[in-house]
C-alpha cells in the first residue's frame, strides 16, 4: 500500500513535470519558428525596399541621360547652328557699336554652349564610364570649383578599379551631391578628397574648412520633405550597403563614406 502511494506520487510528479516541460518546449520551438519567419520577412522587406530604391535610382539615371542627350543633341546643336549663323555675319559691314554687340553675342553664345556641354556631361557622366571613378571625381571637382576661390586637392587610391557600373554611378552621384552642397552652403575655401582601399572597403573622406553638417543635422535634414539631395544620398548609401558619417569641428568638417569595394555584380 505504502509503496503504491509512493509510486503513484512519483509517477504523478513525473507526468506533470513532463507535461509542463513539453509545453515549455513547444513554446520555445514556436518562438524559434516565429523568429525565423520574422527574420525571413524582414529580409524580404529589405530586399523589396532595395529593389524599389534601385528602380527609383535607375529611372533617375535614365531621366538624367535623356535630359543630357536632349541638351547635347538638340539644344547644343541649335546653339552651335546659331553660332555659325552669327559668325557668318560680315564684321566689316558693321559699325563700331554693332561690332561690340556682335562680339558680346558671340561670347555669350560660346559661354552658353560650354555650359550646356558641361551640364550634359555632368548628367551623362561619360567620363565615369570611359575613365573610371577616380578620373570622374577629379574632373567633376575641377569643373565645379574651376574659376572659384576654392582651393582643392585630391588624393585618390589608384588601387580602386571600380565596382559594378551602377554602383560606381551611385557613388559618383553621392560625391556630386556632397560637393555641390559643400560649395553651395558650407562657404568653404579649401576642400580635399581622399580615398583609401583597405580590406575590400573603399573609404572616401571629404574634408573642408567650411561650416558643414553634423551627423544629427544630416539625419534631421534627410528626413525633411525639402532635403531631396540628402534623401538621395541616404537611399544610395543604403543600396550600396555603405555608411556615411558627418562630423565637424571649428576648424574643419569631415564627411566619411565607407563602401564595400566588392559588391556582388
Amino acid at each position, binding site marked *: *500500500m505504502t509503496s503504491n*502511494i*509512493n509510486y503513484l*506520487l512519483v509517477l*504523478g510528479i513525473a507526468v506533470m*513535470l513532463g507535461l509542463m516541460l513539453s509545453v515549455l518546449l513547444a*513554446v520555445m520551438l514556436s*518562438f524559434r519558428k*516565429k523568429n525565423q519567419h520574422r527574420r525571413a520577412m524582414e529580409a524580404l522587406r529589405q530586399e523589396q525596399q532595395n529593389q524599389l530604391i534601385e528602380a527609383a535610382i535607375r529611372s533617375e539615371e535614365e531621366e538624367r541621360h535623356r535630359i543630357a542627350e536632349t541638351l547635347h543633341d538638340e539644344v547644343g546643336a541649335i546653339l552651335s547652328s546659331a553660332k555659325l549663323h552669327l559668325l557668318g555675319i560680315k564684321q566689316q559691314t558693321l559699325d563700331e557699336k554693332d561690332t561690340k554687340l556682335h562680339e558680346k553675342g558671340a561670347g555669350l553664345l560660346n559661354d552658353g554652349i560650354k555650359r550646356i556641354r558641361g551640364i550634359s556631361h555632368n548628367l551623362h557622366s561619360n567620363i565615369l564610364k570611359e575613365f573610371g571613378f577616380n578620373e570622374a571625381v577629379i574632373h567633376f571637382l575641377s569643373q565645379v570649383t574651376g574659376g572659384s576661390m576654392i582651393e582643392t586637392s585630391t588624393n585618390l587610391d589608384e588601387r580602386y578599379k571600380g565596382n559594378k557600373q551602377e554602383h560606381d554611378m551611385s557613388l559618383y552621384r553621392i560625391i556630386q551631391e556632397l560637393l555641390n552642397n559643400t560649395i553651395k552652403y558650407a562657404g568653404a575655401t579649401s576642400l580635399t578628397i581622399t580615398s583609401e582601399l583597405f580590406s575590400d572597403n573603399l573609404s572616401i573622406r571629404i574634408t573642408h574648412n567650411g561650416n558643414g553638417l553634423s551627423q544629427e543635422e544630416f539625419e534631421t535634414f534627410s528626413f525633411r520633405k525639402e532635403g531631396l539631395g540628402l534623401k538621395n544620398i541616404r537611399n544610395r548609401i543604403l543600396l550600396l550597403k555603405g555608411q556615411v558619417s558627418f562630423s565637424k569641428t571649428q576648424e574643419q568638417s569631415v564627411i566619411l563614406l565607407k563602401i564595400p569595394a566588392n559588391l556582388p555584380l
Partner: protein
Amino acid sequence: MRSVFPALYLLSIESVKPMRFLRYLLYSYFIFLLINFIFFDNIFYLSTAQHSAESILILIFSISFFLHLIIDDEADYKTVKPALFFSMGIGLYESINFFIYLFFYPVLNSDYNFATTIYDASQYSFILYWVMTGLAIYFHTRQPVHKISSAS
C-alpha cells in the same frame, strides 16, 4: 492565498486579459476556498486540498498563457520574456507540488522518510521558482522604455 497574486499577475498580461474563463476560474476558486474552510478544513492547519486546488489553478493559468504564446503570431519573445520566465518558474513549481500536496498526509502517515524526501524536493522547486522570478524581474528591468517623441 499564494496563488492569488501570481494569478492576478498573469491576468494583468495584455494577451491573457481577454481569456474570461480564467477570471471565472479565479472566482470559482474563491468560492471553493470558502466552502472548503467552512465545511471541511480548518484554517489553522495545512490544507492539502486547498494547496492542490491552488496548484491546479496556477497550472491552468500558466498553461493557458503558454498556449496563447504558441498560437499568437504577434507574440514577441523579448516583450513577453519576464512573464514567460515567471510563468515557467511557477508552472514548474506547481507541476512538482500538485501531487506532493495531494498525497502529503497519506505519505506522511505511511512513510515518514519518503515524506521528508518529497518535502525537500518541494523546497528545491521553491528555490527554482524564486530563481525564475528573480530572472523575470531582472528581464523586466532590462526592458527598454519606449518614449513617444514628436516627429520633427
